[in-house]
């Protein structure tokens, strides 16, 4: 089987061999690792697109459980006595993990007992209270869907957008300016203006690395990292201006914007129409990628820029267009936050949504549906982690660790496959990738 696999050259000029010589010499079953950035990120076949992400999340949660088990004070004390009472130590660990994850789960999805009681009482207020955690999960997932898309879309063209954070901030700056200055507009129009301003601000910011890459070849990873910081300081500067700053406050905070998304399930739940906007954006990206010429060009450039150029496409134009679109998506996330849960621009406004987008795009295999599912999952984790911290003093930062591990297991699927002893997809016939 191994002999069928010829060494081949990747478009980037990187010479890649399908497998290690030692494996061949040892007579081990050799499987072809995916080659090329886009293929690594998107994966092929159900094993890589469904099984590996699922196991990655599961394994990351498992490792998270281990970390909690060995850091929770009570469980740690029990391990100190493990020599005399090993079972007690195990039980204490299990209790600690169980309590933390149960709090995480009920914080994310709601308390089953509460649901039952609410249904029995038939009191709308009770039902709303029971649905509260679920509503929060969707509220957190909404910006995550958008920033996830902002990373996933460039992935398909072979671009790595680390700039979601800055694009979100740039979008939020413009959206905030629109939201508190165009107050003469009627409500729905003002909301539309805020959303549009967010998309425009993020789009402009995103197009900078696209332009730089197209014109000068500057690597988008470096430029987007740097632009994140520039955007943060730009926001800080604007917050020091008369135009932005809230007159009655001394700390850097903007005037609150006057537009808000309508609530979907009544005033007591924060679930708002921004979710519909995010889902529509995901549908639009899916449509763009799969049903339009532009989307085809994006993917052709991602698969092989030289071949795309030879076929008459313009990789340069694609880079600009795709980064502008990605920036617009991240900017929408900024507008969404302003028009819902945080009506004022502040320093650190983004609170990591842009960085989370990278994890989500990787976990969702750079596909819109995958990104939505990944965003819902991490929305749940983020929302649930707050009640976990409140109930069990487990620091919310455990979510960042879990997120990092998900990135690791997706990026190095060999680890997950090794743990669960599943093979990769079988090696293809001679001639390298199609």
């Amino acid at each position, binding site marked *: 089987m191994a002999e069928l696999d010829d060494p081949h050259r990747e478009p980037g000029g990187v010479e890649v*061999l399908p497998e290690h010589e030692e494996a061949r010499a040892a007579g081990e079953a050799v499987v072809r690792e995916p080659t090329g950035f886009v293929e690594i990120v998107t994966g092929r076949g159900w094993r890589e697109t469904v099984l590996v992400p699922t196991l990655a999340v599961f394994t990351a949660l498992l490792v998270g459980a281990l970390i909690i088990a060995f850091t929770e004070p009570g469980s740690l004390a029990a391990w100190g006595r493990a020599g005399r009472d090993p079972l007690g130590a195990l039980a204490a660990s299990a209790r600690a993990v169980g309590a933390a994850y149960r709090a995480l789960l009920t914080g994310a999805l709601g308390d089953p007992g509460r649901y039952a009681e609410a249904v029995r009482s038939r009191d709308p207020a009770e039902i709303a209270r029971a649905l509260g955690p679920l509503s929060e999960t969707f509220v957190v997932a909404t910006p995550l869907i958008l920033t996830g898309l902002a990373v996933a879309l460039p992935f398909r063209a072979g671009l790595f957008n680390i700039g979601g954070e800055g694009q979100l901030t740039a979008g939020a700056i413009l959206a905030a300016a629109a939201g508190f200055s165009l107050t003469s507009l009627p409500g729905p129009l003002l909301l539309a203006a805020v959303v549009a301003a967010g998309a425009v601000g993020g789009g402009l910011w995103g197009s900078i690395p696209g332009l730089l890459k197209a014109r000068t070849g500057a690597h988008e990873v470096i430029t987007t990292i740097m632009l994140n910081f520039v955007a943060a300081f730009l926001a800080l500067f604007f917050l020091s201006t008369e135009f932005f700053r809230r007159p009655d406050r001394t700390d850097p905070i903007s005037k609150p914007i006057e537009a808000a998304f309508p609530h979907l399930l009544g005033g007591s739940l924060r679930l708002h129409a921004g979710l519909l906007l995010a889902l529509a954006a995901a549908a639009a990206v899916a449509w763009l990628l799969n049903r339009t010429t532009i989307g085809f060009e994006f993917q052709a450039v991602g698969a092989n820029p030289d071949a795309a150029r030879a076929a008459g496409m313009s990789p340069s134009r694609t880079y600009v267009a795709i980064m502008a679109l990605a920036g617009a998506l991240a900017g929408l996330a900024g507008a969404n936050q302003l028009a819902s849960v945080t009506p004022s621009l502040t320093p650190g406004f983004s609170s990591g949504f842009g960085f989370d987008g990278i994890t989500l795009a990787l976990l969702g295999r750079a596909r819109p549906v995958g990104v939505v599912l990944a965003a819902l999952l991490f929305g749940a984790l983020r929302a649930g982690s707050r009640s976990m911290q409140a109930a069990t003093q487990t620091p919310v930062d455990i979510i960042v660790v879990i997120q990092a591990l998900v990135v690791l297991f997706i990026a190095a699927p060999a680890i997950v496959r090794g743990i669960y002893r599943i093979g990769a997809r079988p090696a293809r016939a001679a001639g390298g990738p199609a």
Partner: protein
Amino acid sequence: MSAAAGVPVGAVSATRARATGIFFLVVAAAIALLFGLGSGPGEARFGLNLGGRETFVTLPDLVVPVRATAFVLAAACAFLGGVQLTRGFGRRTNLVLGAVIALFVFAFLAWAARGDQMNLLGMLKSTLLRSVPITFGALSGVLCERAGVINIAIEGMLLSGALAGTVAASVTDDLWIGLAVGAVVGGLMGWALGVLAIRYQVDQIIAGFFLYLLALGLTSFLSARFLQQNQQLNNPGRFQELRIPVLSDLPILGPVLFDNNVFVYLMFALIAAIHVGLFATTWGLRVRAVGEHPRAADTVGIRVLATRYRNVILGGMVAGIGGAFFTLGSVGRFDEGMTAGKGFIGLAAMIFGRWNPIGAFGAALVFGFADSLQTKLSILGVPIPSEFLLMAPYLATILVVAGVVRRARPPAADGQPYVKE
């Protein structure tokens, strides 16, 4: 890169030399217009002594007339630009570029301090101290990337070094053990980057991002879980200043350079060692060969993967020490996310310094200066928002990466996995 594009190398460097000369002239014009014509009559007073530190001679304050100074400095810049355009400085261009930037900065300071006074030495010292973690981060990047492994996890290595160093020093009550543990933990991070990038051939940007996230999450988690309740774990103390006899009594140089804690001396030693190592030893030649053309290096018997492993581990250790500076060399306690992006500025400094240790240190000094200047500007009442100075390093790096100012070219095989045939 130029050779690959079919353009003779000489033609490119001639264009670049001319562009540099024109840049000098532009700087001269800017000094004359902004700080000469743009300022009224007046004097600026610069303190040349650091409070409480005696040197051989106590220097009088340097008092300069702002306008005349600006014109003199502008003339000097214009002269350098003229020489560059006609004769060219050749290999010394970078040195002259540094001098021109220094002249511009001095003219700016004189303008900013007009009718007021400013302690020049305090400024220099704070510039140096602020550049320390940036330099460690940049050196870490140089070590990794010269061998062909991209390291965007520098920030994470700084964070983990800071936490590990603090806890180890607090527990053992020995700052040196803290420093060593910081280096070891940084080295472990480097090793992890190596395993992912070299053994598993994970995309190096993703691998670096993973390590950054992991370090960010774990340090915050552990510090929230343990350090907040147990303050005795977060009380390492800090390295005291070590006055070097005789040298520290020199005026100007003494207090700035020779009256620092061990991190600053270590930084200078590492810059020298890495520079000499990379460019004047067999080891360095091999490392650069591995980073530029691994297959050729392999052909002549250099062990490519081992070289890469060694360098990412060394790079991680350097960043770990840089992380320990935050706690053991500066603040004396660990706080969540205390590195505040210094690792990413280090990455920027490495690029700005063109993957060269001394260049990276120069860039770190410039960035450190921008950082320390922004705290002074509001005191002096200069109408430049400090935010723009803070974003300057990042903007400068973007310009460099885009080739607008001075093109930076990474090692040819940077970021590419190597598989033996």
